[in-house]
């Protein structure tokens, strides 16, 4: 029996949107009830009296968004913990082997070079240096080691 009194929420649980999960209040418990979306079925008819089809779709969308956020947060947590991803605010020891690989492997990779130059020019001391010749050389440098050498000179 589905009524306004015991209804909590309902949403579709499959991509085809044929099956619905309904959460209902019981004696100090919440009960999950799965049913087919079939407007001829009395249970479905009862549900549609307390929750419209539009509302069902909206609840489904909200739930999927929440699930996505939860999944992303979990994945990020695992990635950071295992060293696949770094926390920008907390550089740990696992960061350094990756940094070394990033510098010494694939030294002429254009995308890497671009990202490295951009990051270096975000350093105020480099960006605002009056040594225009070195800044020009940094822009024109063709590999990561050359870029870093010039950057270190500008910083010292």
């Amino acid at each position, binding site marked *: 029996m589905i009524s306004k009194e015991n209804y909590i929420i309902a949403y579709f649980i499959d991509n085809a949107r044929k099956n619905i999960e309904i959460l209902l209040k019981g004696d100090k418990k919440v009960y999950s009830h799965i049913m087919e979306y079939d407007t001829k079925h009395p249970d479905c008819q009862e549900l549609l009296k307390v929750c419209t089809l539009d509302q069902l779709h909206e609840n489904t969308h909200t739930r999927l968004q929440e699930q996505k956020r939860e999944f992303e947060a979990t994945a990020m947590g695992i990635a950071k913990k295992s060293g696949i991803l770094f926390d920008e605010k907390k550089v740990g020891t696992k960061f350094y082997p990756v940094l070394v690989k990033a510098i010494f492997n694939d030294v002429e990779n*254009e995308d890497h*070079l*671009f990202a490295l*130059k*951009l990051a270096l*020019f*975000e350093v*105020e001391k480099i*960006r*605002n240096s009056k040594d*225009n010749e070195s*800044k*020009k050389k940094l*822009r024109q440098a063709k590999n990561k080691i050359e870029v870093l050498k010039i950057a270190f000179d500008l910083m010292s």
Partner: protein
Amino acid sequence: MNIVCTGKPGDGLLRYSYEHCCYLNSVGIKSQVVIIPNPKHTKEDYIKAIKDQYTTYENIVFNHYTPATDELTLVLGRSMITLAYLDKHNYTKDQLLTLHLLFSNNVIALYSENHPKEYPLALKYFKTKKVYDLCDHEVYPNGVGTQYEKIINFEVYKPVKDDIQFRYLFLGTNEIYYKELEKVIDKYPDHGIITYNEKWINPKLNNLFAPISNILGKFETYVYTKPNFDPAPRLFVEFKWLGKKIEYLRDKNIKDGGMVYWNRPVPTKQIYSANINILIELKRAINEKYKIF
């Protein structure tokens, strides 16, 4: 001040940018136009466009520039930032680096509505520090920013040589403009159409391929037919300035710069400086805020 132009060599925004640059330098505000050529055009196209029209060619840099963090960036239309964002995969890495460095500083931007969805994405992409808006509220009633008009700086124009070759001038620089002028062109047999050598042009008509030297001197009358939103028309203002005839051959109910500029006086030196002083005052206030002297 770095005035960034990512538009095409035929665009009004390139001209407004260069004219701003000339005025700002003339009053002691060191400025330059930084042009990142549209991937379909060359540096030479831009140089020709400027040299054809103005008495000077100075303070223009192409592609490579590394601004300090306290340098201000000016764009004469938001589209200069959005186009750069949309074209990001077609630029060289060095062009993209210049754009990142210029647009991550404080930016003064003239309000426009070309890409309302993409503009915020562009700002996010370039990590723009802060945008200070200027807006022509007569053209954009729902725009944001301090009132500011785009005005032609006729002081820097080359003298126009009278060399009439056609009676009527039509602008057909894109397919939409071209289709529109084709509806009326048979009534103007002595016409010249400024356009590009594209597949949508009609070879039976008198097509003149841009850029065209001394364009203002070659026609008697400008027939204004632009069917879509025109924020800051230049050609009919130029014709008015020269005392030439203009036929306003478009729907007068279109709410854009067409009617607004039609009703404005021909810009004088005073009108120009009164308007640009709004920008100069804004620059001063920003410098004051960030203690830049």
